[in-house]
């Protein structure tokens, strides 16, 4: 219990020390958006032949006529009071848009990471138990394949096979069938909301929608997870304490699971945290292919139409998620490894 307390203290300290970085991200994104070519006023004017005066009016409305430092101060003030601005595309507050879309992305990413871990860890362990064997080479081949094929290609392939050829999957458009009724929104995670509502048919439908995009994302990250599992498992299996475990006659599974794997899983936790953050931001291709209403495709659309506020909001959100995920990894690590103390 004491160790857990120490871990929490350490995690809190880490969180505080990451706040300046978050602020830096905020300022940097703001400036970057101002430097990038493209004038939002031109973009959102009524049409290509809008007059100069009309553009000027819009620019004044958006506050773009003020000097950049002043714009920055205003923006920071707004962010400080919880207002990320309004999206020109959707006409809604950015916070509202993000809140609607983040659960979709998180649900997809969590599921994909879960699938990836459940596949990668056993594969890595199997490969490490028989290095150089057929199994090891098979795992390596599978991983190479996963990394080589871009997610949108594997996504399209999955759609082709399971939707078009076999007809097993529903049409790849969004999180639920457009005609299905949504459960009352509690967490925003459809799988959980359906369960809470007791609607199992709806749950199954949402699950079927989720599985293909999750699979194509998982395929991409199985490789790093399986490789790190294999590598750290090899170290673990070759270590002195595994030899000790064998020397006192522990059953085979106990040596592999309790002694080798539990030690080997520590670096996997770290990598899984990094993989999760990367997936959340980088799964825009999968979201596009499956028309998934997530934050990444939202941000991409905003970026293409020079819509400043959503892009800045998205970057801030990603940075925050990254910090939180790292915190979680820290806490998990502290629980898994008693040697980690306040440092």
């Amino acid at each position, binding site marked *: 219990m004491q160790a857990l307390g120490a871990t929490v203290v350490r995690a809190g300290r880490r969180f505080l020390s990451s706040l300046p970085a978050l602020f830096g991200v905020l300022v940097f994104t703001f400036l970057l958006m101002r430097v990038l070519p493209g004038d939002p006023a031109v973009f959102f004017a009524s049409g290509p032949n809008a007059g100069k005066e009309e553009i000027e009016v819009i620019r004044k409305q958006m506050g773009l006529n003020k000097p950049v430092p002043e714009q920055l101060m205003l923006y920071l003030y707004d962010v400080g009071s919880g207002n990320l601005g309004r999206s020109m595309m959707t006409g809604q507050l950015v916070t509202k848009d993000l809140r609607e879309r983040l659960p979709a992305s998180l649900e997809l990413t969590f599921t994909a990471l879960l699938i990836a871990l459940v596949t990668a860890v056993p594969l890595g362990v199997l490969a490490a138990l028989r290095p150089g064997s057929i199994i090891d080479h098979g795992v390596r081949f599978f991983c190479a394949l996963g990394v080589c094929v871009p997610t949108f290609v594997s996504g399209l392939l999955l759609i082709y096979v399971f939707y078009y050829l076999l007809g097993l999957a529903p049409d790849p458009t969004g999180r639920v069938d457009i005609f299905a009724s949504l459960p009352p929104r509690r967490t925003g995670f459809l799988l959980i909301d359906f369960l809470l509502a007791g609607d199992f048919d709806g749950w199954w439908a949402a699950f079927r929608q989720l599985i293909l995009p999750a699979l194509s994302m998982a395929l991409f990250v199985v490789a790093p997870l399986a490789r790190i599992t294999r590598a750290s498992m090899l170290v673990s299996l070759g270590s002195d304490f595994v030899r*000790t475990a064998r*020397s006192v006659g522990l059953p085979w599974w*106990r040596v592999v699971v309790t002694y080798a794997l*539990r030690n080997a899983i520590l670096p996997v936790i770290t990598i899984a945290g990094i993989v999760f953050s990367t997936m959340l931001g980088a799964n825009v291709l999968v979201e596009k292919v499956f028309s998934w209403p997530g934050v990444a495709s939202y941000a991409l659309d905003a970026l293409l139409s020079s819509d400043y506020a959503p892009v800045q909001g998205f970057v801030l959100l990603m940075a925050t998620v990254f910090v939180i995920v790292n915190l979680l990894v820290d806490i998990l690590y502290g629980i898994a490894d*008693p040697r980690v103390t306040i440092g």
Partner: protein
Amino acid sequence: MTSSLLALSDLHVTFSTRRGLVEAVRGVTLSLGEGEMLGLVGESGSGKSVTGFAITRLLDAAGRITAGHIRFRGQDITRISAGDFRHLHGAAMAMIFQNPRAALNPIRAVGDQIADAITAHKRMPRDEARAQALELLRAVQIRDPEKRMAAYPHELSGGMCQRVMIAMAISCNPALLIADEPTTGLDVTTQKVVMDLLTGIAAERGMATILITHDLGLAARYCRRVVVMEQGRLVEEAEPTTLFHAPRHPYTKRLVAASPTASSRIADLVPEEERGRQIAVPVAARPQPAPGTPPLLEVQKLAKRFDEGAAAVADFSMTISAGESVGLVGESGSGKSTTSRIICRLIDPSEGEIAFEGQSIGHIPARDFHRSPFRKDIQIVFQDPNDSLNPRFTAFDCIAHPMLRLGGLRAGDALRQRVEECARRVGLGIELLTRFPHQLSGGQKARVGIARAIACRPRLLVLDEPTAALDVSVQAVVLQLLDRLRREDDLAFLFVSHDLNVVRMMCDRTIVLQNGRIVEQGESRAMFDNPKTAYTRELVEAVPHIEPELAATAT
């Protein structure tokens, strides 16, 4: 040998490596009776540990028993299945390993690990297993066993970890215990306690024990019968006293001679037949320093505190005159390494004065000391010849580097000549200079380290356990080399070591440190023969002697 517990006949073990097959054990035949204690002695690469691992079937995946048989209680266990062998592991034969901290699972409480070992062979509820584990911790004399049950290995000292390891090994009362260098890396006093405990338990429970060690003295102290291995073969088998008084095999003779004892001298470390090959070094009589000359090194009231800890070193004062050799001994944590590092100005003292030839050097910050003209006068030889050489430097680069940096030499013929001269002085073949550290043997790397240290003709050489990582026969040669260099150059030594026998041979005076303070100092031989403080006596008594009776009469 009426009832033979274990019998090896013509055992061969081969490892497949990148360079092809390597035969590590080549035809070992030996037997062990119930409850007997056997010492298996040899240097690194002799195949002694491999023999132990072959018996318990814990060889690396690359190792294979290619010929011969292992019989345990009359049953041939050479080819039984891994599943059947699991029932022998722990229950019938168990092992104790070198480096106890690494041998325990770092993220599992030690009590659970012992309980795991118990439940591997007996079905019982977890509570009962834990209760038995607690009993075992008591049996291995761990203080506060209830508290230690929940401790993790990193919270225990090396000696404690080894006791836990012993508890695990004896948990199912095996008939055979194989201890592979069980006390290497532990302090002498801890070594004695752990070995006494181990032999006590083995005797009490009637376990036969094989003690695998490189330390002849240790084997002699605890075993009735000692077997010497060299290059995978048994070369001699005898009772310790016969072995040491009248070794028959030339290798055993060399090994016995090279093992430092209380009475050995540096010249004795090589057997008589081979002594002729040595070049006699003319020892110039040391000129008496003119009165009033300051000593080479004078240290006054040195202290070092690391942040918020107790002082690592406190109130340390000493002097070294030119050409003198001073030993610094103590257990791990006694502050001897810290002191030596402060003196060679790698770290800064918290308090105190250091004067070199009368000039204060203590105030120069350690990170600027490399610019001081005294840098080349004070050089260091590090403990680990493997880690202290840059793996990307050839031997030539290693030796040339200080000459370029401190000696003011430029790359060219002059440098080449100086490096080659240095190599010749330390007995390193010129043809080896183009090699990288991984292509050199341990002894050769040690020579490179020494050549690098003497490259700029220092006045004071700080030697931090220079031979701790070497085999005794290599150690013997390196010690002779160091002694010769000292005489030739009128070098002063600060010799840091945990090995009292080595210090006694190498040093005129010795300082004993405990918890950062000097407890005793004086002329080496006199002090070790007649220690005045209890701590020094304890240290001296903990050293395992090859010939206990002889050592007693020699004093």
